[in-house]
């Protein structure tokens, strides 16, 4: 399902990260990085709530707006009952649409916001996403201080919060079109190989997008997936070639970009809902504003993983949503 937009723009964005991202190769592009994983709070969960709150604060300050100027907040995260979103929204008092798309949440939020603005239901919207490495480790894997061995294909949840302000004002980055993804399950149940879980979903969405917009892959200066990691990236390239006979050129993956894979202990790269927007809103938008690249297809990939389902021998379904971003 592809939507076309004539009048939707991402006017500005804000990104805030933890210490690992702040020491990574993209550090100078982030608005703020903390050295403390607790972000001056008492628990990992409170830290993640703060990531959303503060990214929205930074965004509103940048735009010289107040929260009363915002029509709707569309936000989601990885924690159970999307608590980071819900608690952040309770202190903000902006009408909320809470969403869950695992690590595809950022683009899902952008699509919903763009549809509402295009339909003139709202004048503007803020979309937010967060993830916190330790909060995610605690919920999905082992206690943070537990050092059990992990495999090379394991991804490292990025810590950060990212927010974007969208409206029909013609400044910033144009949201040109978007494709909603389908849930895909090719039988992978390995929680330490999420790149393999998500690659077919990304491939399916890219293929659908190209077919429905009648475009060639070369139309885009950059195809950017969310968090496949360095091995998932190779799987996607191979899958696109074998299944759809499309050679992925000008392609990169946010999960492979945010850390220094060789020198930081992050295994196959970054994952988490914050991964895709942290890279896109900072480094990629910077390049787009300088007109180094003009057309980007951002494909945020989400593994819809549930510990109980995996423990009861079920495979992991995945989804990917794509959004086409342009500068004129």
């Amino acid at each position: 399902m592809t939507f076309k937009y004539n009048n939707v723009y991402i006017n500005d964005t804000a990104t805030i990260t933890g210490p690992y991202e702040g020491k990574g190769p993209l550090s100078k592009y982030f608005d703020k990085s903390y050295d403390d994983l607790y972000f001056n709070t008492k628990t990992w969960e409170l830290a993640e709530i703060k990531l959303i709150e503060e990214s929205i604060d930074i965004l509103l300050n940048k735009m010289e707006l107040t929260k009363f100027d915002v029509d709707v907040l569309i936000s989601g995260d990885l924690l159970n009952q999307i608590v980071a979103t819900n608690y952040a929204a309770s202190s903000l008092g902006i009408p909320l649409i809470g969403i869950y798309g695992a690590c595809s949440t950022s683009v899902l939020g952008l699509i919903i916001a763009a549809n509402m603005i295009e339909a003139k239901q709202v004048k503007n919207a803020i979309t937010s996403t967060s993830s916190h490495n330790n909060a995610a480790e605690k919920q999905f894997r082992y206690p943070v201080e537990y050092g059990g061995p992990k495999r090379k294909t394991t991804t490292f949840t990025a810590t950060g919060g990212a927010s974007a302000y969208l409206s029909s004002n013609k400044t910033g980055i144009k949201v040109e079109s978007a494709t909603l993804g389908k849930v895909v399950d090719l039988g992978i149940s390995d929680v330490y190989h999420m790149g393999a879980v998500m690659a077919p979903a990304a491939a399916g969405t890219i293929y659908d997008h190209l077919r429905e917009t009648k475009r060639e892959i070369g139309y885009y200066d950059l195809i950017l997936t969310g968090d496949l990691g360095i091995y998932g990236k190779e799987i996607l390239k191979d899958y696109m070639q074998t299944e759809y006979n499309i050679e992925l050129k000008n392609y990169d993956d946010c999960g492979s970009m945010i850390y220094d894979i060789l020198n930081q202990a992050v295994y196959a790269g970054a994952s988490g809902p914050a991964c895709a927007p942290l890279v896109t809103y900072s480094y990629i938008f910077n390049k787009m504003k300088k007109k180094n690249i003009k057309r980007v297809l951002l494909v945020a990939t989400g593994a819809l993983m549930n510990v109980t389902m995996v423990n009861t021998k079920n495979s992991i379904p995945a989804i990917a949503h794509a959004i086409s971003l342009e500068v004129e």
Partner: protein
Amino acid sequence: MDKNKYKNLVSKHTPKENVLCNGLIAFGVGGLMGVLGQALIDVYSYFLNITTNDAAMLMIVTLVFLGCFLTCLGFFDKLVHFARCGLIIPITGFAHAMMSAALEYRKEGFVTGIGANMFKLAGSVIIFGVVSAYLFGLLRLIIMGG
């Protein structure tokens, strides 16, 4: 693409774990832990003038304390990351699993946090430890008559 074909495609791009290298490190570190344990038993029994059995008990207490203490200081996970099963299989791994869970859940309260979650990882070690001890005891009874 069908699931089997995809599985093949995935394994083509999945790196091999260095089983031999990891095994050798675990063997070396695990062996050193054994040496440390034996040294502690010898030291305790010599200086405290106690039986080897009592000294072994003190050795276990010492290693569990070390595992817990280094976990609390925040770098035992990095040692385990390097030494892998060399530190997980000995009693230090058990202490590390208990302590890391206790640290993680201490903010959720004494009963609902620490009490309910401390055995999250170590619980299965105890359960299957007891079960296998029972089975091997039974085998010993059948084969050797007690």
